[in-house]
């Protein structure tokens, strides 16, 4: 069985907050009529310029913090 990482209280909230902040910061720049795109790199394919919050969130994969 895989060992579990146990975190309680603020130590548990902080990594989650980091991830949430990361997505939100990436997406914030795409907002509005003058929003800019986010460049997403892919394996064996040309990178993508995305301006859609869902598409950006879907492409984001973070290792265990």
């Amino acid at each position, binding site marked *: 069985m895989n060992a579990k990482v146990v975190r309680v209280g*603020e130590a548990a*909230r902080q990594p*989650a*907050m980091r*991830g*949430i*902040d990361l*997505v*939100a910061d990436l*997406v*914030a720049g*795409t*907002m509005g*009529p003058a*929003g800019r795109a986010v460049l997403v790199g892919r394996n064996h394919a040309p990178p993508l310029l995305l301006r*859609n*919050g*869902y598409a*950006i*969130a*879907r492409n*984001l994969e973070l290792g265990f913090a």
Partner: protein
Amino acid sequence: MRDLAWRTSDAVGDGTSTAILAARAFVRAGRLAALSGIAPSELQAAIDAHSTAVLEALEAASCPAPEAAVLERVATQALGGDAALGALLAEAHLQAGSDGMVVIEEGRARRTPCASTPGCISTRAGSRRISSTMRAPGRSRSRTR
């Protein structure tokens, strides 16, 4: 966050970035409240009360689907300032109606045709009532419900 964005995209089709930013603000405030010793059950009741108030305010501020001229301006803005395409998109939306579905497809032709198909089309995602299809040259595929 991904699930939230997916649900927003599925239910509304737009506003995913706004939803993500709102969620971040929500989590920040909730964390602050939890840190300052507010009981989670109290917090839940407060969140429910406030979200009801916000929904009521939004409901009061909303207006019915605008007339053609306003729709055309919105469409032009959404297409990045292309007035001709904006007029076509507004027309497509008017043909489809507020419950219809407008699909923009990438095309290789020189002009941009607009076709409307009344009736029910069964797709995997469900059924569309009236659909209005537009083929724009060199435009990426996107869907508007």
